[in-house]
Structures are given as structure tokens and as C-alpha cells.
């Protein structure tokens, strides 16, 4: 380090730095890092909140054979694939279609508005829409499609798909905005050159636009992936994971094991599995972030 301050020694500067950094480290350390470490530790115990005994990897071994956990893992997988297919793909298509169109502003506004709603409000709204005597069935009836009317939230896997559609309604706007940011960064000359080469419509999209959108796509996919793995609010409010535990995601399984059944050790093991999956998925995003940091 260069001469830091004409009055202070480097040692004094370092203790000042400690003063500046202490509040952040204290808050994050005490309320996030320590609880995280304790969850990992607790996952090796059988713990009902009153007494605790070491069981090693037993909780994890039980998970592998636990039907409801495997179902929850499957549901989390369906959510991940579903939110990559629908909100990401629709976000991309709507962004491309509205980028240079007069009607685009109207469509963009309509699609982005739900993004301002919380997961809980989205759930309340779709609870009204998806009830058996609710909005969706009423619309279907009005269109003469009564044959398609059904109890959307009462059976698995219909309820999981219905909830993914509700999330699509809310989340597509954010992806669309990000893709629009990416589209506007493409130099006009690149697109003009593509046009001159005779590319139009889908060929222009595939050969010129999509390759240019690669960096932003990685960000969008990273965000969606991590977000879908943590799905909680909408399922909690729409089905509580039901019927039974059929539509639970990992986040709900952890919550139920811990707070409803007081199986703290087992719930901790579910949380650790979720963490490992989330960190692995974040890697896609982080790798890029780290590279741009250098």
C-alpha cells in the first residue's frame, strides 16, 4: 500500500477499516452465516427441539428412501423446467416481438405490471382464478369450453402445472425487460448486415439476434433457475403443498418438517440438500460474474 494518510500509520488505517466493516460483518455473520453453519451441524442430529442426539448421516440416508421427499424433489425439478420453458422463453419471444413495434408498448406494460406484485398477492389473485368456482373455469364456460373445466388446485400434477402458469404470469415481465436490455445493446449495423445478407424473420432471429443475446440469456437463466429452486410463497398459499404433501417443493418440505413436525434435524438435512442444489445452479451465474470481476 502507498502512504495512506499523512497523519495515520497503516496500522491505524487498518483499525479504521475494521470500524467501517464491522457492522456489515456483524449483521451478516450473526444472522445469516452462523444460522447457516448451525443448520449444517444440526442436520447430523436427531432433534425434536427438546433433545438432540448424534445420528451422523442417517437423516440423509432416510431422505433417499422418503417417498414424500422424492416427490418434493420431483416437484422442484418440474418447477425448474417449467419456469425455464415458460417465463424465460415467453419473455424472450415477447421482447423480440415488441422491440420495434408500435403496439409493443401496450403489450410490454401489460406483461410487466404483474412483476410489481409480490408472490403472496399473486397467490391470492390466482387462488381466486383457480378455485373450482373461480375465474378460469368461468372463462372456459363463457368460451363454451366447459369440457376443460376442472378443479385446478385439488389434484397433482394439475395443481403444480397451474401454479407454474400463475408464476409465468407474474415472472415473464422481468425476463422480458432483461431481454429488451440485451436487444437494445445489439448494434443496428449488425442487424442491418444480417438483413442485407437476406436473413429475415426466424432466420434473422436465430442466426443474428440470439447469438448476440447470449450474455443476457445466461443472467436470465441463472436468475430463473435459482428462483425456481426456492419456490415457496405461491405453493404455500395456494395448496399448502397438498393434497397431502403431493405438491410440496423442497422449500415447503423443509418448512413442514421443521415447524409443523418439529423434526429439526431432518428439516435441516432438507435445507442442506436445497442449499447444495442452489449453489450448484448459481455456479452458472457466478462463473460469469467472477470472470467479469477480474
Amino acid at each position, binding site marked *: *500500500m502507498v502512504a495512506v*494518510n*499523512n497523519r495515520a500509520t497503516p496500522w491505524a*488505517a*487498518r483499525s*479504521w477499516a475494521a470500524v*467501517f*466493516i464491522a*457492522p*456489515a460483518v456483524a*449483521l*451478516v*455473520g*450473526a*444472522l*445469516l*452465516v*452462523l*444460522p*447457516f453453519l448451525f*443448520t449444517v451441524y444440526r442436520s447430523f442430529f436427531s432433534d425434536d*427441539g427438546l433433545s438432540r442426539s448424534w445420528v451422523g448421516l442417517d437423516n440423509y440416508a432416510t431422505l433417499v428412501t422418503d417417498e414424500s421427499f422424492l416427490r418434493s424433489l420431483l416437484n422442484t425439478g418440474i418447477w425448474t423446467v417449467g419456469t425455464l420453458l415458460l417465463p424465460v422463453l415467453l419473455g424472450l419471444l415477447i421482447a423480440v*416481438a415488441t422491440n420495434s413495434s408500435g*403496439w409493443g408498448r401496450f*403489450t410490454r406494460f*401489460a*406483461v410487466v*405490471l404483474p412483476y*410489481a*406484485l*409480490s408472490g*403472496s*398477492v399473486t397467490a*391470492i389473485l390466482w*387462488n*381466486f382464478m383457480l378455485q373450482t*368456482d373461480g*375465474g378460469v373455469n*368461468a372463462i372456459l364456460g363463457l368460451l363454451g369450453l366447459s369440457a376443460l373445466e376442472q378443479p385446478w388446485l385439488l389434484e397433482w400434477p394439475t395443481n403444480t402445472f397451474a401454479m407454474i402458469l400463475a408464476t409465468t*404470469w407474474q415472472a415473464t415481465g*422481468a425476463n422480458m425487460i*432483461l431481454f429488451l*436490455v440485451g436487444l437494445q445493446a445489439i448494434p443496428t449495423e449488425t442487424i442491418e448486415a444480417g438483413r442485407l445478407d437476406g436473413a429475415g*424473420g426466424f432466420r434473422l432471429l436465430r442466426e443474428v439476434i440470439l447469438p448476440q443475446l447470449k450474455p443476457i440469456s445466461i443472467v436470465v437463466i441463472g*436468475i430463473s433457475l435459482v428462483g425456481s*429452486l*426456492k419456490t415457496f*410463497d405461491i405453493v404455500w*398459499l395456494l395448496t399448502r403443498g397438498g393434497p397431502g404433501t403431493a405438491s410440496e417443493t423442497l*422449500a415447503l418440505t*423443509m*418448512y413442514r418438517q421443521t*415447524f409443523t413436525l418439529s423434526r429439526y434435524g431432518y*428439516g435441516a438435512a432438507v*435445507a*442442506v440438500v436445497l*442449499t447444495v442444489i*442452489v449453489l450448484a445452479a*448459481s455456479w452458472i451465474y*457466478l462463473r460469469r460474474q467472477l470472470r467479469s470481476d477480474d
Partner: protein
Amino acid sequence: MARRLRNALLVAVALLWLLPTYLVVVNAFTAADEYVGPRWWFTSFALAENISTAFATADIGQAMWNTFLYSAGSALIAVVVAALASFAVVIMPVRRPVLWFWLIYAGTLLPLQVFLSPLFNAYAATSLYDTQYGMVLIYSALAVPFAFFVVRNYLTTAPKEMREAAQLDGAGWFTMFLRIHLPLARGAMVAAFLFQFLATWNDLLFGITLSTSPNVRPLMAALAELNGQYSGLGPPVILAAGLVASIPTVVLFLSFQRFFVNALRLTP
């Protein structure tokens, strides 16, 4: 022809997206005792009665005030704490800045569920459970990592000459922070504040885990209760409450769209 087809498609998409919102608004206006199934058109204008029923039953007004305190308070605390830490990591001569960066940033990578049960136990043991202080504390901690990330990224672009000029003037670290870097990072701090304000406003998980009484409970937890225990009140009341709960976020979002786009690109 292709253009006309595309425009028609775009309008169809827009209408499809607006349909649920429209139905919600119409039915939030329907008088609760007249409701027999989803309405298509305004038949009564009972929004105010529906809202006051929701406020009276699930204490939505108190919950909104709580959430406002938590969102504003914790976003403010987090942004100031994050700015101090960013200044230390970027500008001051700390040893191992990368280690400190990761220690603070790691908080945003972990799924929230992993913090829950130890926090619940610790809050119960320290009588922070079901208190407003406890809620501000956890929401502040949750907001620090991302705010730190945004402000730090911004400060790394600050020209070095500024620091050197200030040092020649004999300014101490604190003066330098207040006079130079705090004003410099103002834009990043506003973005981080807005983003964390909304994140806290929308939280359900910590609200249902760390609080229970109406005096402490945040808005989304109160809405969840209204939607669950009081579903007998009927959709109009619940939808009206949902509409009221969304007004602040929709207004904030529409007025500061640019900030959100920038902050969104950085979310992990």
C-alpha cells in the same frame, strides 16, 4: 401481412395478461354478500366496504404500517452499513479484501430456508421473537449482502485520484467517506434502497416464522391469514386487501423502473 399478424398477436397477449387483473379489480368492487361467483362487470361499488372488512378482520392497516417500518428501516440500515463496508473493502487498505467480500456477499447465495430454524430458536431464546426490533434486525441482515454488492461494484469505478486528492488535503477516512464517496455512490444507494424496500415489503417466509401477533406481523403474513383462516369472508374482501397491499409496490415500481432494471441485472 406478417406485421399485421404480429400486431394482432401482441394485442392478444396483452389482453390475456390483463384479464386476471381485470377480473380481480371487478370482483374486488363486488359487495361481499352479493358474490355468488366471478363477476364480469361492475355491479356494485363496494370496494371501500370490502377494504374496511379486511382491515377490521385481519388488522391489515396495522400490518401495512409494520411492513412500512420494516421495509424503510431495514433498507436504510442495510444501505448505510453496506456503504461503510464497501468503502472499507474498495478504498481503504484492508488485508484480504476478497475474503471480506465473500463473507458478506455469501448471504445472498444461500436459500433463505437455511437460516430459518436456527433464527427461530435464537429469537425465542433472546426474546426477539415476535418483536418489531427482531423483524428490523433480520430484514436488515438479509438486505446487507445485495446492497453491499451494488454499492461496492459502483465504488470500484470511482477514480483513484479523488482519494489521493482528499489525502493530500489531510482529510481523515470518515471525512473522505462523508464528503466524497457517499455522494458519489448516491445513485447506487438509491437503487439498493428501493430494491431492498420491495424485497422486504414482499417477504412472507420470515413474517410467518418470526412473528405471530397482529402488532408485529408484516403485511404478507396478514394477507396469508386472511386468505387461509378467513376465506369465509369471500373473494371480494380478500381481493380488495390484495389490491391495497399492492398499491405501494406498483407505484414504486412504475416510478423507478429504470432503477429496477439496473438492480435486476445484478441479482444472483
